[in-house]
């Protein structure tokens, strides 16, 4: 089942194009990584999918209907924004009570245990919290809401490494018990690469990758060795990245498979991490842009 469908969705702010004909599908009960650089259009996509922002053109479907002002759809959605603002008068406990009031699947016990693990004091005014504690409030609401479609928009800002790991662990454990569709927007790709099952990479408002993480990992390989041997192997593949030092060459190739039998020629094969793949793909896309510009 598909939870989210976008077809040719474009968003313009004046003469700036934030989303350029974005088409994607998000499967139900899957953890999706929405990856991309700052300003790539990640938040814009999530705003449109939650009916908070408006697309300029294109088709949007969440659980089979357009989300704008659609209570039936929105009741099943939770979207805590990066830098979510809370009313100034609210304490942590007020925000949690509000969430308990409005999310039908809210698990108060789970929320309470998360409050303890993230070391929040519920009576504290949210306005007075540090950046990390503020993020923790959003993470707790996002997890305990158990919404069938939950968006985490860069949920880790200011969180220390321990707290981030805590978030990943709790997300995975709770997801295993209560499967749901999770969209995790992040640029700490290495940290979440074990978590995400499906990757959507966007850059400058366009989808560069829309693929299952496993497929993606097997899609590229880094090969290094003597220049001539590497060049011979690389023949015919799309080169994502190249580093050259003396007579030594190291290239990341798209679509290539490791060939262990070539070890004798001095070739070394390494899997490409999701982060590297994303960085290389984004860089290659930018290179292509520039070439188009020159022409």
């Amino acid at each position: 089942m598909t939870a989210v469908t976008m077809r040719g969705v474009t968003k313009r702010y004046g003469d700036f194009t934030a989303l350029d004909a974005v088409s994607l599908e998000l499967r139900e009960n899957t953890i999706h990584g929405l990856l991309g650089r700052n300003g790539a259009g990640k938040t814009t996509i999530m705003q449109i999918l939650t009916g908070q922002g408006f697309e300029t053109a294109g088709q949007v479907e969440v659980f089979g209907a357009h989300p704008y002002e659609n209570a039936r759809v929105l009741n099943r959605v939770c979207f805590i924004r990066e830098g979510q603002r809370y009313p100034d008068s609210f304490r942590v406990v007020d925000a949690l009570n509000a969430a308990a009031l409005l999310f039908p699947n809210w698990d108060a016990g789970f929320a309470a245990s998360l409050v303890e693990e993230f070391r929040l004091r519920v009576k504290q005014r949210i306005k007075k919290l540090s950046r990390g504690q503020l993020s923790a409030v959003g993470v707790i609401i996002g997890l305990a809401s158990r919404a069938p479609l939950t968006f985490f928009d860069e949920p880790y800002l200011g969180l220390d490494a321990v707290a981030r790991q805590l978030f990943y662990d709790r997300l995975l454990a709770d997801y295993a018990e209560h499967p749901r569709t999770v969209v995790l927007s992040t640029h700490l790709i290495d940290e979440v690469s074990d978590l995400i099952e499906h990757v959507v990479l966007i850059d400058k408002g366009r989808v560069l990758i829309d693929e299952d993480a496993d497929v993606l990992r097997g899609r590229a390989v880094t090969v290094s060795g003597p220049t001539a041997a590497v060049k011979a192997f690389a023949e015919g593949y799309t080169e994502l990245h190249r580093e050259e030092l003396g007579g030594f060459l190291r290239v990341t190739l798209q679509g290539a498979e490791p060939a262990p039998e070539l070890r004798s020629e001095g070739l070394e094969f390494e899997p490409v991490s999701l982060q590297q793949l994303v960085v290389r793909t984004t860089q290659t896309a930018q290179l292509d842009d520039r070439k188009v510009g020159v022409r």
Partner: protein
Amino acid sequence: MSTAVLDAPVGNRPLQVMRLHVVNPPLQLLMPWAVLLLSFVVNLLVFSLVPDSPDDARVSGGLLTIYIFTLVAHLVTMTQLFPFALSLSVTRRHFYAGSVAFVVLQSMLQGLLLTVLAAIERASDGWGLQMHFFDLPFLQSGDWFTRWLILTVPFLFFSFVSMAAGTIFKRFGQFGLWTVGLVGLVVGGAAAVLVTWLGAWGAIGRFFVDTPPLMLFAGYPAILAVLAAGVGWLFLRRATP
């Protein structure tokens, strides 16, 4: 465990929004009354110290504080509670319906409380000091129901006007609010010039004196409150958090 999280019943969204307004009761509900009470006590003290002079009526303007509080509170409703509610998956329609219902209920109850206090003030000869704090001379009119209307409708007026202003801010940003403010200033200034030119200030003064309090404090404000509520909804539909 094979299926997705089941859809639990959602409940009455507008009612939940009404409860969202009082999720932090001390600040949202009690603070304005605490300040009003403080103002009342200060007035009591002052008037009990000032020697009695039969010519000067002992009238206080302290009652205005609670209306100003309402004004500020419902600006915050749109600038802070609305974005938060939207992130908790409330639709704009349900948020507005719940907020309007909350404002109406809040106004009615606060008006009732003020009416009771005004009645006590009247019965106790101004708390034994001939003081007018709740039972203001120019508001005294008709039966208790009329007095309740006169004390209630201004709450509605201030609430909806400030919600409309907050909505314009959310929809068009600071620029929108400044534009509305400037246009208001220019229109008001032009009207003042026109009135002066026509020599009509006397007529305007007479309007305020001659119009019965019920019309002045309840009738006209009620019309404006409904208009403001409509304007608020119009802009909220395309407002982003």
